[in-house]
């Protein structure tokens, strides 16, 4: 059996501060199989985004960060790789989409130049002309018709939705097997966000790309993901297929999260009193969704 694209086992993260070590992730485990779309859902500060950055190896460069646990990519323990080997995976085998498309693109370079830079990760010798031609095809895939104009533009000349499509095209440009989407398009209009997300879903299905979809928005997750992990304060509290989880939320926090959806104006973020029994409710795993054992 082929190993899962991504397998995380018992991942701990803590930060060294003036007042000692603060643990942010208390041992989370998750996996994504080839071509599978998996969501990691939780409120801000629950540890979603740091998980994404650990997978890419971005967080480890911080001297205050202490990372512990297993992160396996296509059966390969990432910590066992040299810095150079690990670096080589970024932008080629795995890539990432960020929250705010416009501020995530460099303001002083044209889209075409930035595409060129991305494509050079996979093919260091690619010329600007070849890169432009390839970028134009990629932009057509994300339904951008006037690709020549877009390639000649700076990010500030394009709309947020357009930049979001550019970012999706860039992320998929080198045919990665894992795409991490960190709150994609949260900074955009709801309608634009919905459009670009459905575009992204079609593309990853077509390319059979595995996706780790990080979001606080259950409505979006339901549309997008096959399987869902709910994370709360650095712990996975519930795990199941999207269908099962939305039909039958079992962990008190998941239920609180779902009740919170329609209330746009008030109520705020669900919170469980850390003195209540619910806070200590164990991980709920829905039927048929266990974590795979490694080859070792």
């Amino acid at each position, binding site marked *: 059996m082929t190993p899962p694209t991504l397998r995380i086992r018992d991942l701990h993260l803590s930060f060294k501060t003036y007042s000692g070590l603060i643990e942010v992730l208390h041992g989370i485990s998750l996996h994504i199989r080839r071509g599978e779309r998996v969501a990691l859902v939780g409120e801000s500060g629950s540890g979603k985004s740091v998980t994404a950055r650990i997978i*890419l190896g*971005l967080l480890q460069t911080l*001297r205050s960060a202490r990372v512990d646990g297993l992160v396996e990519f296509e059966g390969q323990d990432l910590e066992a790789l040299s810095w150079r080997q690990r*670096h*080589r*995976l*970024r*932008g*080629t085998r795995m*890539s*990432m989409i*960020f*929250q*705010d498309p416009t*501020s*995530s*693109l*460099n*303001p*002083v*370079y*044209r889209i075409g130049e930035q595409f060129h*830079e*991305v494509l050079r*990760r996979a093919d260091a010798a690619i010329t600007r002309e070849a890169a432009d031609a390839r970028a134009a095809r990629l932009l057509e895939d994300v339904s951008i018709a006037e690709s020549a104009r877009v390639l000649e533009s*700076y990010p*500030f*000349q394009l709309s947020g939705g357009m930049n979001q499509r550019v970012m999706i095209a*860039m992320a998929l440009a080198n045919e990665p097997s894992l795409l991490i989407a960190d709150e994609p398009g949260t900074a955009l209009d709801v309608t634009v966000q919905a459009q670009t997300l459905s575009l992204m879903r079609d593309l990853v299905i077509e390319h059979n790309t595995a996706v780790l979809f990080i979001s606080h928005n259950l409505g979006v997750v339901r549309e997008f993901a096959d399987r869902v992990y709910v994370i709360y304060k650095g712990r996975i509290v519930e795990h199941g297929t999207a269908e099962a989880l939305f039909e039958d939320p079992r962990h008190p926090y998941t239920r609180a999260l779902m009740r919170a959806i329609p209330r746009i104006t008030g109520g705020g973020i669900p919170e469980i009193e850390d003195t209540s029994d619910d806070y200590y409710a164990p991980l709920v795993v829905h039927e048929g969704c266990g974590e795979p054992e490694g080859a070792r």
Partner: protein
Amino acid sequence: MSPVVRLILKRLGISLIVLVGVSMLIFAIARVIPGDPARIALGPNASAEQVEALRERLHLDEPLPLQYAYFIADLAQGDLGVSLYTNRPVTTDIAQFLPATLELIIVAGLMMIMIGLPLGVLSARYRGAWPDNAIRIVAMLGVSAPSFVWAVILMLIFAFFLPLFPIAGRIADSFSVPSVTGFLLIDTLLAGDIRAFGNAAWHLVLPAFALALSGIGQAARLTRANMVETYDRPFIEMARSYGFPERRIANRYAFRPSLIPSLTIIGLDFAALLGNAFLVEAVFAWPGLSRYGVAVILRKDLNAIVGTVLIISAMFLIVNIVVDLLIALINPRIRLSQRS
């Protein structure tokens, strides 16, 4: 009209207003001081008639606004009056001394940018680590001493103890270079005399470096601060997530957006170079505007003081227009947007 042209015209207009302000300010300072400028110029032995004649010639009997009007009318014809110290037109004096000073300042300015910016980039790239700490200390030492102290120290070490560079002057006396532009580096090349060019360049190293040192420190500190801020922006994290090499991220992705705020301040720092040139010229006996400037100031030579200050301010404003132009070129937002 393209946005860049419009920007330049706007800046030229503002600079002109500022220059008129400068002329008023310096004119006011020169006229409201106690004492009779004509008497000061002629000395205590001159007769009352002589003083009166000079007062009339300089329009000193007229009301202040009318004096200013005369001054501006002359200025419009390129006439800054006659220096009471050299008895020559001030414009002639300035034309003689300015090129040496300009040459020194331009080389120092280039050193400031070509050494200061890369140091700032390195410092930001290795922030918190030893290269950063070393560069920060050096940069701060650079800004912490006036340039005459650096000039003296450099001269002591690299001209006296280690006789690597000449002690003073612009070029060895054995060379005779016909003056075309007044810039020795250019004149020697025009004359096709490579050895003279080398000699002039060799004389320039210490003074220019002494003049540049505080600017280098300032540019490095500024670039570091702006780069560190840029490093926190999302597009840097995106570049990292794509695995762009760290060096490329520093030199391209983080540097260019940081350069825009840095350049503005570096343009303003040019004022310090213009002023400090006086100090360095004094140490290295550089035959520039400094000796003339100090001499006319000590002799209260009004026309010459006003003329020198005006020329220096005009140079400063020109440099800042050039800086604005550069910023417009590297910042697509200014280059392409319809609003300024």
